[in-house]
């Protein structure tokens, strides 16, 4: 092919230790590995073996765009980082998506992605301009907050550069540190900021003057009009009088101003709520910042997200008439439900979420918390769903009586939270240093029984009007906090949904629900709802969700537009429009299976992943009741795991994929390597 469509053709291997760059043709990997996370999985499998720790120079940061990035196909601006996550417990290979303009700029500079290796001798940043990669000193940037770093880089290189940077949290190896674009998009889930810090890498700054060429321009334009039905209507700045999770809003004195912006280059949506003129944590000057998803609870966390019914918030069980995207919810663009839907009555059965009483609504304090996370470069989930609720609950249960954080523990106090974040980010004192290790590790050092498993007595279900147990530490598998899992935050989903989200989490290495929200059809729901753990449909929907997540991080597209259950070949159409390579839904699914298998193989080879390990990792959180008082039994859960493994082509005893499964997806070499290591299940007679 004379002209390359979609891809730009080069992956740069960048070695920070000896400051060298070499080029790998993207065609070494595509189209077999599609792009994005699929390529990253392949590279990691090939290049990083067992025994490497997150902060070792041998750990790599793999960054990949997709073939749709910068083609004009909506959501293609989303891209992916992978690495060994210091924020997972144990440290494991994980990934994190990111929006912004950075990925497009990388392609304009002539690269489909990078493999960053080694460790720089001193603070360094990469300056990439049209195929040229320079290692520059970051001495003058080290210590700067996220936005100051972004501004300084623009001052040095011009306003048209695009950067991803870390803040002080990443420099100080705070395990949940993030990497941030100029528009507050973050890769936060895999502790990437800390991996940057461990490599003395402060930022990557790019300017690209090149082009990206999509194969089918009329199709690109068609997708712009069709994907997620963009509203194509004026969106003025709105003066809001209230703020909070829809259905639980509280008045804001004087009101506030809201606008909506797109998260990534070339998207046709505006999911991010831009809060204008907000209080800053670092000065008198007001700032604009983005609220997306979890940051909403910074402003007040007295009750959980309301229940909407099986088709309610998040739209888990969908019909053709009633399915909408989470991003539409955040951009406050959801149309009222279609009442002509024959299932309407069953789908929408609203009810209040649990009373939690973590902290009262305080608009200014909420703004300060979000600003602290943005500027230090730290994952908001860990702060808002784990650290602060833990302090709130633990204080009420008296577990911190012996602990001196240098100030009285009080999550209602802005001053306390500023102090807390300061001691963590700069690792001040014993407890600052300990909490910088992340919640999962800190709690184990303190003693999990008391500091993790103590029951909070302030949770009250309004579904069954009863006090229900909740542990003070909202931990789920792999050192992450709960997310759409039936307890804690966004817990108001019933068992047929939360067994599925917990299964997603079980096979992951990080919080999955930010990247693969669970979806299924309402018709399946009616079949599986009475015994979801014994229905093959539950496992089938989880597998679909996992594969779609691989696809969306590879093509690339966005978790908030994909999957569309009623347009299943959307991603195949996107891929084909970008690359000109014919692609069907089935073929793309095969590529996703392959990528997923590589991920599974990495976790088996490098981290000893097996059935017992993963079942034991996820089971404990489901022993706390959901808002209806429901839990899952060991037998139920294992029956569901059986169904899942069976459908996946894994051996039920070990949880390891069989040779036949690897070979079916063209991964015989992977099977051979695992067999040599004794990590292939015995062949069935």
């Amino acid at each position: 092919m004379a002209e390359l469509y979609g891809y730009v053709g080069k992956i740069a291997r960048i070695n920070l230790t000896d400051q060298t760059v070499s080029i790998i043709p993207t065609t070494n990997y595509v189209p077999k590995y599609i792009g994005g996370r699929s390529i990253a999985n392949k590279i990691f499998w090939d290049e990083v073996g067992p025994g490497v720790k997150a902060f070792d120079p041998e750990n790599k940061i793999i960054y990949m765009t997709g073939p749709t990035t910068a083609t004009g196909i909506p959501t293609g601006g989303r891209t992916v980082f992978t690495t060994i996550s210091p924020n997972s417990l144990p440290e494991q290979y994980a990934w994190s998506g990111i929006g912004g303009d950075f990925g497009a700029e990388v392609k304009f500079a002539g690269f489909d992605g990078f493999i960053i290796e080694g460790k720089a001798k001193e603070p360094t940043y990469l300056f990439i301009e049209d195929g040229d990669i320079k290692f520059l000193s970051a001495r003058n940037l080290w210590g700067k907050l996220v936005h100051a770093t972004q501004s300084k880089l623009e001052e040095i290189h011009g306003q048209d550069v695009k950067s991803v940077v870390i803040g002080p949290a990443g420099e100080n190896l705070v395990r949940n540190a993030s990497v941030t674009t100029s528009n507050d998009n973050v890769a936060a889930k895999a502790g990437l900021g800390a991996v940057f810090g461990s490599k003395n890498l402060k930022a990557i700054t790019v300017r690209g003057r090149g082009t990206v060429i999509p194969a089918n321009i009329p199709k690109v334009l068609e997708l712009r009009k069709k994907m997620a039905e963009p509203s194509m209507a004026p969106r003025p700045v709105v003066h809001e009088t209230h703020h909070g999770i829809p259905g639980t809003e509280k008045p804001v004195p004087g009101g506030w101003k809201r606008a909506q912006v797109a998260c990534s280059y070339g998207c046709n949506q505006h999911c991010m709520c831009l809060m204008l003129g907000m209080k800053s944590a670092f000065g008198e000057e007001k700032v604009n910042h983005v609220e997306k998803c979890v940051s909403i609870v910074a402003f007040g966390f007295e009750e959980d997200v309301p229940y909407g019914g099986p088709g309610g918030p998040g739209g888990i069980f969908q019909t053709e008439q009633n399915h909408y995207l989470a991003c539409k919810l955040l951009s406050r663009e959801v149309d009222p439900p279609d009442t002509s839907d024959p299932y309407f009555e069953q789908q929408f059965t609203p009810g209040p979420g649990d009373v939690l009483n973590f902290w009262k609504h305080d608009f200014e304090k909420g703004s300060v918390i979000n600003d602290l996370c943005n500027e230090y470069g730290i994952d908001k989930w860990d702060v808002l769903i784990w650290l602060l609720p833990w302090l709130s609950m633990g204080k009420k249960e008296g577990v911190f009586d012996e602990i001196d954080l240098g100030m009285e523990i009080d999550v209602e106090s802005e001053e306390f939270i500023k102090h807390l974040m300061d001691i963590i980010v700069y690792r001040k004192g014993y407890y600052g240093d300990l909490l910088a290790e992340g919640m999962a590790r800190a709690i184990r050092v303190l003693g999990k029984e008391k500091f993790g498993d103590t029951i909070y007595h302030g949770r009250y279900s309004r579904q069954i009007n009863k006090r229900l147990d909740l542990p003070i530490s909202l931990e789920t598998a792999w050192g992450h906090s709960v997310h759409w899992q039936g307890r804690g935050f966004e817990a108001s989903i019933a068992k047929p949904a939360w067994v599925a989200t917990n299964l997603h989490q079980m096979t992951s290495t990080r919080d999955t629900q930010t990247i693969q929200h669970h979806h299924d059809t309402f018709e399946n729901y009616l079949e599986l709802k009475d015994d979801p753990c014994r229905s093959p449909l539950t496992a089938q929907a989880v597998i679909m969700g996992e594969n779609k997540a691989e696809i969306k991080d590879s093509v690339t597209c966005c978790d908030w537009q994909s999957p569309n259950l009623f347009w299943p070949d959307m991603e195949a159409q996107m891929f084909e429009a970008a690359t000109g390579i014919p692609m069907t839904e089935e073929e793309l699914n095969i590529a996703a299976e392959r990528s997923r298998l590589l991920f599974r193989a990495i976790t088996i080879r490098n981290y000893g992943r097996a059935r017992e390990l993963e079942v034991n990792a996820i089971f404990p959180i489901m022993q706390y009741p959901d808002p209806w008082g429901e839990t899952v039994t060991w037998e139920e859960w294992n029956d569901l795991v059986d169904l899942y493994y069976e459908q996946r082509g894994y051996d039920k005893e070990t949880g390891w994929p069989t040779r036949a499964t690897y070979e079916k997806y063209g991964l015989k070499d992977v099977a051979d390597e695992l067999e040599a290591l004794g990590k292939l299940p015995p062949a069935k007679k």
Partner: protein
Amino acid sequence: MNEKKQTTRALGRHIVQSPPEVSFCAGCSACEIVCSLVHDGVVGHAYSRIFVNKGTRSMVSTIYSCQHCLDHPCYEACPRKDQAMCLDENGIVYINEEHCIGCKRCIKACVFDPPRINYVHSKDKTKRKAKKCDLCRTRPEGPACIEFCQVSCLGLSKSENSD
């Protein structure tokens, strides 16, 4: 915005951005992207005839494009006037790239800051070309940037000099 000296200049119909009270630019870059796609079949900063200036910290974006000045100093400055810089029957100044020699005189002559003409750099001198908004004059659907703006914050000024 730094619209040097020219606030009273006579302008033809041109692309305008709504004030935030009417519609707030989402900063999605779709206008830039579709502009270069429909004209050149590529996506790339140098190929867009419209530019989105995004505030790094503020996330407030400002749109720049040709104001279609009625006295068209860019056209007057072109050494290949009527071959490279051309004027159509409706008074729209457009660039016939085949004849554009990439001398940048039109860019220098643009009275706005930043200049509203884009430029493709190339090692190959014959490939250096100026890019300027032609209001999508040959596109039956009209201006692509307006059509694809997801928040309809772009429009055509109603009449000469208005916004």
